[in-house]
Protein backbone atom coordinates (compact mmCIF):
# COMPACT_ATOMS: atom_id res chain seq x y z
CA UNK A 1 0.00 0.00 0.00
CA UNK A 2 1.08 3.52 -0.67
CA UNK A 3 -0.30 6.97 -1.32
CA UNK A 4 -1.07 7.71 -4.93
CA UNK A 5 -0.24 11.22 -6.09
CA UNK A 6 -1.50 12.76 -9.31
CA UNK A 7 1.06 15.04 -10.92
CA UNK A 8 0.01 17.96 -13.16
CA UNK A 9 1.47 18.35 -16.66
CA UNK A 10 3.74 21.21 -15.66
CA UNK A 11 5.52 19.09 -13.00
CA UNK A 12 5.89 15.88 -15.01
CA UNK A 13 9.40 16.87 -16.04
CA UNK A 14 10.31 15.87 -12.47
CA UNK A 15 8.63 12.46 -12.69
CA UNK A 16 9.94 11.29 -16.05
CA UNK A 17 6.58 12.12 -17.60
CA UNK A 18 4.60 10.00 -15.13
CA UNK A 19 1.05 11.18 -14.48
CA UNK A 20 0.80 9.46 -11.12
CA UNK A 21 3.50 8.48 -8.64
CA UNK A 22 3.48 6.75 -5.28
CA UNK A 23 4.90 7.84 -1.98
CA UNK A 24 4.56 7.49 1.75
CA UNK A 25 4.30 9.71 4.80
CA UNK A 26 2.19 10.61 7.82
CA UNK A 27 1.49 14.17 6.72
CA UNK A 28 1.39 15.95 3.40
CA UNK A 29 4.74 17.53 4.33
CA UNK A 30 6.52 14.21 4.91
CA UNK A 31 4.87 12.76 1.82
CA UNK A 32 6.32 15.62 -0.25
CA UNK A 33 9.75 14.99 1.31
CA UNK A 34 9.47 11.35 0.28
CA UNK A 35 8.37 12.30 -3.24
CA UNK A 36 11.28 14.72 -3.53
CA UNK A 37 13.75 11.97 -2.62
CA UNK A 38 12.42 9.97 -5.58
CA UNK A 39 11.78 12.86 -7.96
CA UNK A 40 14.37 15.51 -7.41
CA UNK A 41 13.18 19.10 -7.52
CA UNK A 42 9.53 18.36 -6.91
CA UNK A 43 9.47 19.85 -3.42
CA UNK A 44 10.84 23.16 -4.64
CA UNK A 45 7.91 23.46 -7.03
CA UNK A 46 5.36 22.80 -4.26
CA UNK A 47 6.76 24.32 -1.10
CA UNK A 48 8.13 27.80 -0.56
CA UNK A 49 9.47 28.99 2.81
CA UNK A 50 7.89 26.04 4.60
CA UNK A 51 4.42 26.66 3.17
CA UNK A 52 2.57 25.33 0.17
CA UNK A 53 3.10 27.44 -2.91
CA UNK A 54 0.08 29.58 -3.76
CA UNK A 55 0.34 28.56 -7.43
CA UNK A 56 -0.70 24.99 -6.71
CA UNK A 57 -3.82 23.41 -5.27
CA UNK A 58 -3.36 20.15 -3.38
CA UNK A 59 -6.21 17.83 -2.49
CA UNK A 60 -6.22 14.81 -0.19
CA UNK A 61 -9.17 12.60 -1.11
CA UNK A 62 -10.86 15.57 -2.83
CA UNK A 63 -10.41 17.93 0.15
CA UNK A 64 -8.39 21.07 -0.52
CA UNK A 65 -5.59 20.95 2.08
CA UNK A 66 -5.85 24.72 2.60
CA UNK A 67 -8.86 23.87 4.75
CA UNK A 68 -7.40 20.81 6.50
CA UNK A 69 -4.04 22.00 7.82
CA UNK A 70 -1.98 22.48 4.68
CA UNK A 71 1.36 20.63 4.97
CA UNK A 72 0.28 19.22 8.38
CA UNK A 73 -2.72 17.46 6.82
CA UNK A 74 -2.65 13.81 7.88
CA UNK A 75 -2.28 11.22 5.12
CA UNK A 76 -2.23 7.42 5.20
CA UNK A 77 -1.76 4.47 2.88
CA UNK A 78 -4.59 4.22 0.41
CA UNK A 79 -5.20 7.97 0.28
CA UNK A 80 -5.24 9.71 -3.03
CA UNK A 81 -3.53 13.07 -3.46
CA UNK A 82 -4.14 15.37 -6.43
CA UNK A 83 -1.90 18.31 -7.32
CA UNK A 84 -3.27 20.89 -9.76
CA UNK A 85 -2.02 24.23 -11.01
CA UNK A 86 -4.17 27.03 -9.56
CA UNK A 87 -5.92 28.79 -12.43
CA UNK A 88 -5.82 32.44 -11.44
CA UNK A 89 -4.52 35.85 -12.42
CA UNK A 90 -5.86 39.24 -13.14
CA UNK A 91 -5.36 42.73 -14.36
CA UNK A 92 -2.61 44.86 -12.92
CA UNK A 93 -3.98 46.79 -9.96
CA UNK A 94 -3.38 50.53 -9.93
CA UNK A 95 -0.37 50.52 -7.54
CA UNK A 96 1.19 47.61 -9.44
CA UNK A 97 0.74 49.42 -12.75
CA UNK A 98 2.25 52.59 -11.38
CA UNK A 99 5.19 50.70 -9.89
CA UNK A 100 5.83 48.54 -12.89
CA UNK A 101 5.20 51.06 -15.62
CA UNK A 102 8.83 51.90 -16.20
CA UNK A 103 10.07 48.34 -16.54
CA UNK A 104 7.02 46.66 -18.02
CA UNK A 105 5.43 49.03 -20.51
CA UNK A 106 3.67 46.16 -22.23
CA UNK A 107 1.62 45.51 -19.11
CA UNK A 108 0.41 49.08 -18.97
CA UNK A 109 -3.17 49.63 -19.97
CA UNK A 110 -5.66 52.43 -19.92
CA UNK A 111 -5.45 52.65 -16.16
CA UNK A 112 -1.78 53.62 -16.25
CA UNK A 113 -2.42 57.33 -16.57
CA UNK A 114 -4.83 57.49 -13.64
CA UNK A 115 -2.28 58.04 -10.86
CA UNK A 116 -0.62 60.78 -12.92
CA UNK A 117 -3.92 62.49 -13.54
CA UNK A 118 -4.80 62.26 -9.85
CA UNK A 119 -1.42 63.69 -8.87
CA UNK A 120 -1.47 66.51 -11.39
Amino acid at each position, binding site marked *: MAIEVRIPTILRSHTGGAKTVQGSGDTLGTLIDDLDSQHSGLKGRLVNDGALHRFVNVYVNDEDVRFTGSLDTAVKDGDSVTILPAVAGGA*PTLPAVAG*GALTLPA*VAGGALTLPTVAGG
Partner: protein
Amino acid sequence: MVGTLPSVLTIDRSTYNAIVAHARRDHPDEACGVVAGPAGTDRPERFIPMLNAARSPTFYEFESADLLKLYREMDERDEEPVVIYHSHTATEAYPSRTDIAYAGEPGAHYVLVSTRDAVDTEFRSFRIVDGSVSEEPVIVTDVAVSA
Protein backbone atom coordinates in the same frame (compact mmCIF):
# COMPACT_ATOMS: atom_id res chain seq x y z
CA MET B 1 7.81 19.69 -26.80
CA VAL B 2 6.38 23.17 -26.46
CA GLY B 3 8.36 24.19 -29.51
CA THR B 4 6.42 21.72 -31.64
CA LEU B 5 3.06 23.22 -30.71
CA PRO B 6 1.42 25.28 -33.42
CA SER B 7 1.83 28.94 -32.58
CA VAL B 8 -1.63 29.90 -33.67
CA LEU B 9 -5.03 29.61 -32.04
CA THR B 10 -7.72 28.28 -34.34
CA ILE B 11 -11.15 28.66 -32.81
CA ASP B 12 -14.65 28.46 -34.22
CA ARG B 13 -16.91 31.49 -34.33
CA SER B 14 -19.49 30.23 -31.83
CA THR B 15 -16.87 29.49 -29.16
CA TYR B 16 -15.21 32.85 -29.82
CA ASN B 17 -18.59 34.57 -29.42
CA ALA B 18 -19.35 32.61 -26.24
CA ILE B 19 -16.09 33.79 -24.62
CA VAL B 20 -16.79 37.41 -25.58
CA ALA B 21 -20.39 37.15 -24.33
CA HIS B 22 -19.20 35.73 -20.99
CA ALA B 23 -16.69 38.58 -20.59
CA ARG B 24 -19.38 41.17 -21.41
CA ARG B 25 -21.88 39.56 -19.05
CA ASP B 26 -19.52 39.60 -16.04
CA HIS B 27 -18.11 43.07 -16.72
CA PRO B 28 -16.86 44.96 -14.66
CA ASP B 29 -15.73 41.79 -12.86
CA GLU B 30 -13.26 39.54 -14.62
CA ALA B 31 -14.72 36.48 -16.34
CA CYS B 32 -12.80 33.23 -16.72
CA GLY B 33 -13.12 29.76 -18.15
CA VAL B 34 -11.69 26.98 -20.26
CA VAL B 35 -12.25 25.51 -23.69
CA ALA B 36 -11.34 21.85 -23.48
CA GLY B 37 -10.45 19.63 -26.41
CA PRO B 38 -9.39 16.05 -27.11
CA ALA B 39 -5.86 15.48 -25.76
CA GLY B 40 -3.16 16.10 -28.33
CA THR B 41 -5.40 17.72 -30.94
CA ASP B 42 -5.02 21.41 -30.00
CA ARG B 43 -8.72 21.79 -30.92
CA PRO B 44 -10.79 23.94 -28.53
CA GLU B 45 -14.17 22.22 -28.65
CA ARG B 46 -15.96 22.22 -25.31
CA PHE B 47 -16.70 25.65 -23.86
CA ILE B 48 -16.70 25.63 -20.05
CA PRO B 49 -17.38 29.01 -18.41
CA MET B 50 -16.12 29.02 -14.81
CA LEU B 51 -17.16 31.02 -11.79
CA ASN B 52 -14.66 33.69 -10.78
CA ALA B 53 -14.34 32.86 -7.08
CA ALA B 54 -12.71 36.26 -6.50
CA ARG B 55 -15.64 38.16 -8.10
CA SER B 56 -13.27 41.02 -8.66
CA PRO B 57 -12.54 43.58 -11.39
CA THR B 58 -8.80 42.96 -10.98
CA PHE B 59 -8.43 39.27 -10.09
CA TYR B 60 -9.83 35.92 -11.10
CA GLU B 61 -9.49 32.47 -9.64
CA PHE B 62 -11.20 29.19 -10.38
CA GLU B 63 -12.88 28.01 -7.21
CA SER B 64 -10.94 25.15 -5.64
CA ALA B 65 -13.65 22.46 -5.76
CA ASP B 66 -14.67 23.54 -9.29
CA LEU B 67 -11.05 23.25 -10.39
CA LEU B 68 -10.79 19.68 -9.11
CA LYS B 69 -14.11 18.76 -10.74
CA LEU B 70 -13.02 20.32 -14.04
CA TYR B 71 -9.71 18.45 -14.19
CA ARG B 72 -11.31 15.18 -13.16
CA GLU B 73 -13.92 15.56 -15.87
CA MET B 74 -11.30 16.38 -18.52
CA ASP B 75 -9.28 13.37 -17.39
CA GLU B 76 -12.26 11.05 -17.74
CA ARG B 77 -12.97 12.39 -21.23
CA ASP B 78 -9.30 12.35 -22.25
CA GLU B 79 -9.34 16.10 -22.75
CA GLU B 80 -6.93 18.95 -22.11
CA PRO B 81 -7.47 22.63 -21.34
CA VAL B 82 -6.73 23.88 -24.89
CA VAL B 83 -7.77 27.45 -24.10
CA ILE B 84 -7.71 29.15 -20.69
CA TYR B 85 -9.41 32.51 -20.96
CA HIS B 86 -10.09 35.49 -18.74
CA SER B 87 -11.00 39.12 -19.17
CA HIS B 88 -9.40 42.39 -18.21
CA THR B 89 -12.12 44.94 -17.74
CA ALA B 90 -10.17 48.22 -17.53
CA THR B 91 -6.81 47.42 -19.11
CA GLU B 92 -5.52 45.90 -22.34
CA ALA B 93 -5.79 42.24 -23.29
CA TYR B 94 -2.21 41.38 -22.37
CA PRO B 95 -1.03 39.04 -19.59
CA SER B 96 -0.28 40.85 -16.32
CA ARG B 97 2.59 39.85 -14.09
CA THR B 98 0.07 37.98 -11.93
CA ASP B 99 -1.21 36.12 -15.00
CA ILE B 100 2.34 35.13 -15.93
CA ALA B 101 3.21 34.05 -12.38
CA TYR B 102 0.16 31.79 -12.20
CA ALA B 103 0.30 30.35 -15.72
CA GLY B 104 0.60 26.63 -15.04
CA GLU B 105 -0.40 25.04 -18.34
CA PRO B 106 2.47 25.41 -20.81
CA GLY B 107 0.45 23.62 -23.48
CA ALA B 108 -2.55 25.95 -23.29
CA HIS B 109 -3.49 29.00 -25.31
CA TYR B 110 -4.00 31.82 -22.81
CA VAL B 111 -6.77 33.99 -24.23
CA LEU B 112 -7.14 37.53 -22.89
CA VAL B 113 -10.25 39.53 -23.63
CA SER B 114 -10.54 43.21 -22.81
CA THR B 115 -13.92 44.78 -22.25
CA ARG B 116 -12.52 48.23 -21.39
CA ASP B 117 -14.21 49.63 -24.50
CA ALA B 118 -17.99 49.37 -24.38
CA VAL B 119 -18.23 48.43 -28.06
CA ASP B 120 -14.99 46.94 -29.33
CA THR B 121 -13.70 43.81 -27.61
CA GLU B 122 -10.00 42.94 -27.77
CA PHE B 123 -9.40 39.19 -28.14
CA ARG B 124 -5.77 38.06 -28.09
CA SER B 125 -4.01 34.74 -27.52
CA PHE B 126 -0.68 33.98 -25.87
CA ARG B 127 1.60 31.15 -24.93
CA ILE B 128 3.03 31.52 -21.45
CA VAL B 129 5.92 29.14 -20.81
CA ASP B 130 8.41 29.43 -17.93
CA GLY B 131 7.48 33.05 -17.39
CA SER B 132 7.91 34.14 -20.98
CA VAL B 133 5.01 35.39 -23.06
CA SER B 134 4.59 35.09 -26.81
CA GLU B 135 1.58 36.35 -28.65
CA GLU B 136 0.15 34.23 -31.45
CA PRO B 137 -2.38 34.93 -34.20
CA VAL B 138 -6.02 34.01 -33.71
CA ILE B 139 -7.87 32.41 -36.61
CA VAL B 140 -11.64 32.38 -36.23
CA THR B 141 -13.31 29.78 -38.41
CA ASP B 142 -16.90 29.91 -39.55
CA VAL B 143 -18.67 26.63 -39.06
CA ALA B 144 -21.35 25.88 -41.59
CA VAL B 145 -24.77 26.02 -40.00
CA SER B 146 -27.43 23.76 -41.42
CA ALA B 147 -31.02 24.82 -41.25
